[in-house]
């Protein structure tokens, strides 16, 4: 069996095991606090049939898509700049790394005050999460480019832009892609967290609303949708990532 097939088998076994554990927990705890896998799936299907739920999903996806696009553009630009400019890179890199460790959720009130309650604050918060890994991976990708390639570019008298376009970018693609993959996950987390705190729309809001309604099925269905989406997309990205790294 190829590595790829084995990976699929493991994933299937894993998903089956998780569903079994879920079902066992349901039998153990009961209806009060938990919905069974079947009931949650049925409720999810029912949710998707309603127009208001689709509107919430689209709202979340829209905030997420804008945030991710901005994260990619800003992350690549800053990453290449810090990669090129050794002094700025060495000065700022540890500072950006330490941004990773702070609970960024506490910064959200500042963004809310600056951007107001709504889409732009959500987007800003998503970018705040997603841009960091993209910067860091791009920076390290540029630093790790083989010197011979850069020397060749200099010999050919390439301009800075041509250097990025024809040498640095192709050489750095696998590592940059890893940054884009991690950035994808963190942007999603950021935009959902923003919705969970102070928002009137989107999946994060629905989750918080479910607590007030004490609607276990609703909470579990929305959680399931988020988890399946994140798991599926990041598995796909991981697969592409591994192929790129093997080719390089």
């Amino acid at each position, binding site marked *: 069996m190829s590595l790829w097939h084995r990976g699929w088998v493991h994933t299937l076994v894993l998903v089956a095991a998780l569903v079994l554990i879920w079902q066992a927990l349901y039998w153990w705890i009961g209806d009060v606090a938990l919905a069974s896998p079947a009931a949650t799936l049925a409720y999810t299907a029912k949710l998707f049939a309603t127009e208001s739920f689709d509107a919430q999903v689209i709202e979340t996806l829209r905030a997420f898509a804008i945030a991710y696009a901005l994260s990619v553009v800003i992350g690549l630009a800053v990453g290449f700049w810090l990669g090129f400019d050794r002094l700025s890179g060495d000065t700022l890199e540890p500072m950006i790394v330490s941004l990773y*460790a*702070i609970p960024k*959720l506490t910064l959200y009130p*500042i963004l809310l005050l600056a951007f107001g309650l709504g889409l732009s604050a959500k987007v800003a918060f998503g970018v705040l999460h997603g841009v960091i890994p993209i910067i860091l991976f791009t920076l390290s990708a540029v630093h790790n480019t083989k010197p011979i390639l850069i020397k060749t570019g200099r010999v050919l008298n390439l301009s800075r832009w041509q250097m990025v376009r024809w040498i640095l970018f192709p050489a750095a693609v696998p590592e940059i892609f890893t940054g884009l993959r991690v950035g994808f996950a963190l942007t999603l987390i950021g935009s959902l967290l923003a919705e969970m705190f102070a928002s009137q729309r989107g999946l994060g809001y629905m989750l918080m609303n479910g607590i007030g309604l004490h609607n276990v099925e609703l*909470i579990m269905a929305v959680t399931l949708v988020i988890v399946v989406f*994140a798991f599926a997309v990041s598995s796909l990205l991981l697969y592409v990532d591994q192929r790129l790294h093997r080719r390089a």
Partner: protein
Amino acid sequence: MSRLAWYRILVVGAAVALLEVLCLTGVIDKITMQAPHLIVRDLYRMLVSGRMNAAIAKTLSNTALALVLALGVGVIAGALLHRVRALRDTLDPLFATYYAVPVFAFYPFFIVVFGLGDLPQVLIAFMLGVVAVIVNTLNGLDRVPQVLLKTARIMQMSPVDTALRMTLPSAGPYLVTGVKLAVAYSFIGVIGSEFIMSRGGIGYEISFAYANFDNATMYPLILLILLASVAINGVLSRYEQRLLARRGMR
């Protein structure tokens, strides 16, 4: 201090000075943000008055509890998984995509199941931290040179001796990476969930102050969290680098 450290101080100093000027000249109005020197003054007064001590203690004790659980369970699970190849292979896709799934999305679910006490927060913080510990434990155990284990066998060392004298020192730097991440994640988990919905703690106080337009409380608390997390992370990173340097890995 190195030249780069001075540049970093310069960058932070310039940013703070810029904020100060923008606030004093009224470009950023008072409702949005207070001037940095006022934030520092308020933080000092807050800490001296001790009115946030209960919240700080609550956050710290929950963080510590989650951290201890994540480290204990993570190291043991990592050591076990290292022995059981089949289980490890099965769990690999989970580990690879774990941090792509927003763990906080489970928080409302935990609140409904366990009530609005400390348990949901500790559980979220634990879930965030434990996988980082498992992955780094596995990583460390993978890199213990075979020759050390063979030597231990030749010298007929007991399993405990082998673990303490061979495996642990050898896997040490990777374990420290796991600890560093677990500290950051449990802090993020506790404060984040306090912030979303809870009955106490620093995160709760920030969201409460935000809801009441109480900038004189909110900004000092945010500053406190920033300083604390940057300081803790800095100390652990330095220790990690030292271990790596001693091993000639950097």
